[in-house]
């Protein structure tokens, strides 16, 4: 190895431009990208959807489909230009020295092969001469290194027998198996719960420190960057907006876009100066009480031929009772599978509970009966998580909204005037009324969904993760809109989220759900500052420290 190669950064991308060959002519994807990565370094690439960050990652891995074309620039590893040297050599080099971790742990492993065999296969690909005994020992060691318990016994298990977090650990073990110098990790934690994400990030950091490996981390989450990266590259529309050490980017962002991005990230405050001290730690039932009592819901495990044999059921909600603050936002937080969405749907009347009652003012409704018959359906409107499927793709915005006006609970019968006004209110141009949902952006669609819910003039709105499918900057706007509207229209909102920061920013009262039971509850202030519940604490601790005050 020459000196130049030795001192050269492990990975260097110089003036890289990429375009996509489409029938309508080439579409540029990446413009003039330059970055480098040194041994033992973690470099984060951050950007919102469409920024080209994943394309960049794939380009480095050499996994781009043939329709992508490198129009300019070079990718070098240890000073060797991958494109200039003979392509088979280049491929071999790339494979030996770069490895990958992908986002979706459900498809990153071959479902039909035991995890041990998959890792062993990777080791053999890198070192064909190794004897099987050694390979086995290496596999077990790797599994232990990524903290899989009982590695010897689980060697033969198939991927579906592991949890999501464990699978991602196995993927990391596989990435390490060939002893690469660099791992390209494309959103390695975004499909995981916050607590698991925290553990995986810790593992990655640990590996970097222990083995001196380098990681190129592609993510949309500033929190992940803050947690693990040494340096960060901010991308927007295929360009590099800013590139610097993490501390610099987070504390003194040079670029406007970076600044906006940072501002949009919701932050948790753990200091005592609470948003609202008027709310007590427990809700004392006011005159106009809204809430649920003793709500229980189970799902059958598997299907049986004989209807009476469905004895095995999985509890989704166990005896949940809650109250909502009228005219304010009450939050429900929990990790995936905690039953928070089911609770919202039962409350809205979309699903039947096994037992329990729902109270809206004087009225008490049996939640275990058909909501159409009890009259619960229609009292509550919902805002759904994914705006791309929450609007009927075959209806114009105007038709969808008009339907809401016409059939809404407290329909007042005023026509298009109110539609236009509502469009103004949610910050949409009236000209969008004639469009179909697919012609709108994600944020616009979510605004339409809010307008639709409001036009039905409900007393109560359930918002089920309304921002988690949106980019951070859009998320902030939508949250602001929600806040304003609650204040203005005097509706009661049940806000469901996995994101503590968002909940803190919006809600006056919070329920923490864990495995179908309420683990903790109290005023937002109480939960974030004084609650001693270990589960609540662990949720808060899972948040990146950088965005926690």
């Amino acid at each position, binding site marked *: 190895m020459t000196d130049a190669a030795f001192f050269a950064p492990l990975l260097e991308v110089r003036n890289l431009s990429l375009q996509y060959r489409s029938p309508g002519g080439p579409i540029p994807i990446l413009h003039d990208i330059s970055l480098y990565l040194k041994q033992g370094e973690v470099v984060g690439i951050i950007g919102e959807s469409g920024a080209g960050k994943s394309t960049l990652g794939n380009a480095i891995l050499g996994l781009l489909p043939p329709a992508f074309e490198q129009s300019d620039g070079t990718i070098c590893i240890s000073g060797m230009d991958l494109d200039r040297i003979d392509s088979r050599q280049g491929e071999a080099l790339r494979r030996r020295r770069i490895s990958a971790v*992908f986002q979706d742990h459900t498809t990153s492993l071959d479902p039909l092969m035991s995890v041990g065999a998959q890792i062993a296969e990777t080791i053999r690909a890198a070192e064909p001469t190794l004897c099987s005994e050694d390979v086995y020992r290496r596999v077990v060691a790797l599994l232990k290194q990524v903290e899989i318990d009982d590695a010897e016994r689980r060697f033969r298990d198939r991927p579906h027998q592991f949890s999501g977090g464990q699978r991602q650990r196995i993927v990391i073990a596989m990435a390490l198996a060939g002893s690469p110098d660099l791992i390209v990790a494309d959103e390695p934690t975004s499909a995981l719960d916050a607590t698991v994400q925290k553990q995986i990030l810790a593992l990655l950091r640990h590996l970097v420190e222990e083995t001196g490996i380098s990681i190129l981390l592609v993510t949309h989450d500033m929190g992940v960057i803050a947690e693990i990266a040494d340096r960060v590259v901010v991308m927007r529309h295929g360009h590099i907006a800013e590139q610097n050490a993490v501390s610099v980017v987070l504390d003194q962002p040079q670029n406007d876009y970076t600044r906006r991005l940072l501002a949009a990230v919701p932050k948790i405050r753990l200091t005592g100066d609470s948003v609202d001290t008027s709310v007590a730690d427990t809700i004392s039932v006011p005159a106009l009480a809204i809430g649920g009592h003793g709500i229980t819901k189970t799902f059958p495990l598997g299907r049986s031929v004989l209807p009476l044999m469905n004895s095995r059921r999985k509890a989704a909600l166990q005896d949940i009772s809650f109250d909502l603050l009228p005219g304010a936002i009450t939050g429900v937080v929990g990790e995936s599978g905690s039953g928070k969405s089911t609770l919202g749907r039962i409350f809205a009347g979309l699903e039947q509970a096994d037992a329990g009652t729902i109270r809206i003012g004087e009225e008490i409704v049996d939640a275990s009966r058909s909501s159409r018959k009890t009259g619960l359906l229609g009292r509550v409107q919902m805002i759904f998580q994914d705006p791309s499927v929450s609007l009927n793709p075959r209806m114009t915005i105007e038709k969808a909204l008009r339907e809401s006006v016409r059939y809404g609970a407290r329909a007042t019968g005023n026509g298009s005037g109110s539609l236009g006004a509502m469009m103004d209110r949610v910050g949409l141009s009236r000209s969008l009324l004639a469009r179909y949902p697919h012609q709108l952006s994600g944020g616009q669609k979510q605004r339409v969904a809010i307008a639709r819910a409001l036009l039905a003039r409900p007393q109560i709105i359930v918002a089920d993760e309304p921002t988690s499918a949106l980019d951070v900057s859009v998320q902030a706007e939508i949250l602001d809109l929600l806040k304003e509207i609650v204040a203005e229209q005097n509706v009661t909102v049940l806000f469901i989220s996995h994101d503590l920061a968002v909940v803190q920013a919006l809600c006056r009262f919070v329920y923490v759900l864990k495995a179908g039971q309420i683990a903790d509850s109290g005023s937002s202030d109480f939960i974030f500052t004084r609650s001693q519940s270990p589960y609540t604490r662990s949720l808060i601790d899972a948040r990146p420290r950088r965005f926690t005050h």
Partner: protein
Amino acid sequence: MTLFSAVFGRMGQAVVLLFVMSLIGFVGIHAVGNPVFNIVNVETATVEDIQRATIALGLDQPIWRQYLVFAEDLLSGNFGISYVYHLPAFSLVMEKLPATLELAVVAMLLAATLGVLIGLVAGRQPGTRLDRTILRASVFALSIPSFWLSMMLILGGAILAGRFPSGGRGATARLFGSDWSVLTVDGLRHLVLPALALAIPNIALIARLTRAGTIEVEGLDFIRFCRAKGLSPHRILLRHTLPNISVPIVTIIGLQFGGMLAFAVVVETIFAWPGIGKLLIDSIQLLDRPVVMATLTFVSVAFVTLNALVDLFQAVLDPRVRLPRKG
């Protein structure tokens, strides 16, 4: 759905299926005509002869009583005696089975090997000219009505080239108490054209399925991962891609095989191949009810069994099948 309940469900389905089939077949044939005209020589028989033969076959009884008699016999495993061949109907079906079986097996082997190969070739390089050519060729192949394909094969292979016989089964050799054409050169020559006629649409079908599966699986992260970590393309194909696309392919092979046992009607008729399909169509035309019922029952049972086998195979192949699906 668990494997147990799947098998249980299939059995229940099979019973209902058989009942409905037997009812429709029975009443249908009854409505069409009186088989007695095929049994007596109508050109010389007297009115009395015909009447007596009708009584002897029990065809003078009301249809529901005839069905009860049939059902009772069926429960003791007896499909009755063929009106035309004067042999137990079921053993007649079993006698024709080897011919259909060997035709279907040869055709399916051909279709599966070629189909998977072609599909892989196309699926590994989607969008290329080769892939588009294969796709188009498959649409053409699937568009040829099987009877016309058979006729064109006869025209090309038998009449113009004169290499293969245009019909019949040729010489057979005995094995396991049945006659098989595959064991003789002459039999194989007879087998080529009908097997091709059955195989060609299936080659296209399997190729398309394989192509789609390959494109889907090769786009999954774990295959990308395999590539990223430098496994040989060969190994990726054999150890990862193929097992993962095999589930739908095996399913379609199972279904098509079942279809062949019955659908061979057309091909067997044109090539005068003495199999179950030909027996069925002949028996329908001759109104040989016991044979029609025995054939239909056999085909239905074979179909349901094949479906169950496919389920079983999927469960063996893919461990996830056994787990309850997410509600």
